[in-house]
């Protein structure tokens, strides 16, 4: 019995081993391409030996280092996927209902799963993407398939895990990412970060890639490779996005990728359309007058709001300036390097703060009840079209407050701002 559990845990995995391993199918972790270059067989990245050498003839791969350093002394071994699952009669324990539009996409996904195709679901922020997947996942579970739901960020995985667990309480579901203490366990449904997919080889029949347009997945060849290696040769791959990046749009235009569009939120109201506010001067060391007036207005209305900025430094600076001008306003800042990050966000949720100055860490995957959104220096290079649309999508997420305001402050009306506003308008118009 013990043996069986162990072989299950190896099923579909790519494991690191040594030269002493007698297994016939082991292969070297790093291979020399030339005198100067080598390629990693786990992440397929090519690097220069001279830059990444430890001793005269030992070099290491810098790209997949966080999963455990591989050197040219290591070997890899890929165990074939067994699909050894106990299949429940009724996998889906979720009893909610879908809107007709969601229903339509849900059915489409079931067809895609049967035909083993790739498909993009373009669903606006707050439209109930996850629920549309349930029927397809249930169908795959019944067929004994192995399923992965991967997302680029840990936060998204953590939010997804309990929802999937509750919806499929008869099915084995596990969560895997670098910031958790939990050990890996073989399960039919796996929720993990895209990085973790590098530890699998030809394991999944169905892979759902959530937030496929977000950092760090976007423009990252390593993570793209991770997805391609983790699925079986015959697989179904579903991309989910609220703001598909050019990568997907060009594939759609070239006819290489099919997609379904859901441009209504589950409550049926329009997405809040951002307004642009031209700012003349960023008077340094002072709070800009226009921003000041807007905050004053929001305080009078007792409206809670998020203020997005482009850097950690700006977040701290602006929070200080606001504190100076409006000492009565309960506000704080949050960014990726903030040790109290989780706590502050929870406190904002619990109404402890009226306002939060934040970097783009809160741009996606989070839902707050009834908030307005301000973006300071929206013309900054760090805000691209996808980011701006996602940020705007934080507003108006509940049915009774679907008319929250979104304001972009900037010195220039640049193409990212223009495209973001136009794309939101377009999504609102074609129903």
């Amino acid at each position, binding site marked *: 019995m013990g043996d069986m559990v162990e072989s299950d845990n190896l099923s579909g995995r790519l494991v690191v081993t040594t030269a002493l391993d007698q297994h016939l199918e082991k292969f070297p972790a790093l291979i020399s391409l030339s005198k100067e270059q080598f390629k990693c067989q786990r992440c397929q990245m090519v690097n220069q030996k001279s*830059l990444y050498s*430890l*001793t005269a003839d*030992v070099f290491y791969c810098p790209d997949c*280092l966080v999963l455990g350093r591989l050197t040219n002394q290591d070997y890899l071994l890929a165990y074939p996927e067994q699909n050894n699952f106990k299949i429940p009669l009724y996998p889906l324990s979720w009893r909610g209902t879908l809107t007709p539009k969601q229903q339509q996409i849900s059915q489409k996904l079931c067809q895609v799963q049967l035909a083993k195709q790739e498909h993009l679901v373009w669903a606006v922020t707050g439209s109930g993407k996850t629920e549309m997947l349930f029927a397809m996942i249930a169908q795959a579970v019944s067929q004994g398939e192995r399923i992965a739901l991967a997302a680029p960020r840990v936060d998204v995985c953590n939010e997804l895990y309990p929802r999937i667990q509750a919806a499929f309480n008869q099915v084995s579901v596990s969560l895997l990412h670098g910031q958790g203490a939990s050990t890996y366990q073989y399960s039919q449904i796996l929720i993990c970060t895209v990085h973790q997919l590098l530890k699998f080889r030809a394991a999944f029949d169905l892979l759902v890639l959530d937030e496929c347009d977000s950092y760090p997945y976007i423009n990252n060849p390593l993570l793209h490779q991770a997805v391609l290696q983790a699925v079986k040769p015959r697989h179904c791959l579903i991309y989910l996005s609220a703001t598909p990046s050019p990568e997907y749009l060009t594939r759609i235009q070239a006819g290489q990728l099919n997609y379904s569009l859901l441009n209504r939120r589950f409550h049926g109201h329009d997405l809040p359309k951002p307004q642009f506010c031209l700012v003349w001067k960023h008077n340094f060391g002072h709070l800009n007058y226009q921003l000041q007036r807007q905050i004053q207005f929001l305080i009078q209305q007792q409206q809670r709001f998020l203020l997005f900025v482009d850097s950690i430094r700006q977040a701290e600076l602006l929070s200080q300036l606001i504190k100076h001008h409006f000492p009565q306003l309960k506000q704080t800042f949050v960014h990726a390097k903030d040790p109290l990050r989780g706590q502050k966000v929870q406190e904002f949720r619990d109404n402890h703060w009226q306002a939060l100055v934040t970097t783009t860490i809160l741009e996606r995957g989070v839902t707050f009840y009834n908030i307005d959104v301000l973006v300071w220096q929206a013309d900054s290079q760090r805000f691209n079209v996808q980011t701006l649309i996602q940020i705007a999508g934080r507003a108006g997420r509940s049915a009774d407050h679907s008319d929250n305001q979104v304001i972009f402050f900037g010195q220039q009306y640049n193409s990212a701002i223009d495209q973001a506003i136009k794309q939101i308008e377009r999504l609102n118009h074609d129903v």
Partner: protein
Amino acid sequence: MTSKCVLCQQLIIHEFRPWEIFIGKQIDQEYLCPRCFQEFQAINQPYCPTCGRLGSFQQCQDCQYWQAQGYRGFYHQALFTYNPAMHDYFKRYKRYGDYRLRLAFQPYLKQKLRKLEPPFIFVPSSQNHWQRRLFDPVMGLFEGIVPLTPALIKLATDRSQAQKNRQERLQTPQFFNFNPQFQTILQAPRITILDDIYTTGRTIFHAIDCLRQTGYRGQIQSFSLVR
């Protein structure tokens, strides 16, 4: 000259300052981009006169402790504080074993170490650690900047200093041996000990003890990247 930041892989573009153009001075290769570098906190005044700890011109509590233990005339210097960015750096460098990160602070170390005197003795890693990492982190930091003498040998300990709390660190018994091969350096009037991180000072004072036990009577000063 352009190169990539070893931490974020962004291209570093050196912006020439007027005097650099006039003097025609050769620019050292840079390994950190300005955005990554600004995350680190350099030690500027006020700092502790005997160990370089940031905060006050007064001698810090750690140094008072060592003075109470009977140590006299110790003098330690450091470049940066141990802040979250530095924690992250050492996690990547020592735990994940990204050896290329040894270069990150080279230009700053080069500038600083010019003012210190040889011979330089570094704090070595234990055999276990070496086998796991396949490199010595302290040697990596200072190699190629100053000539290093491997005069200390680290004995096996049950746990590394990093895994212990303050009290446990301070109570750790001597873990260095002097390598008799390098007897000749004991003739020098002054010896500099190099380490990566100075936390309680335990490691440095063990190294000092070790040198004193071999009969060294000259001056000993020490330097670490981080205090």
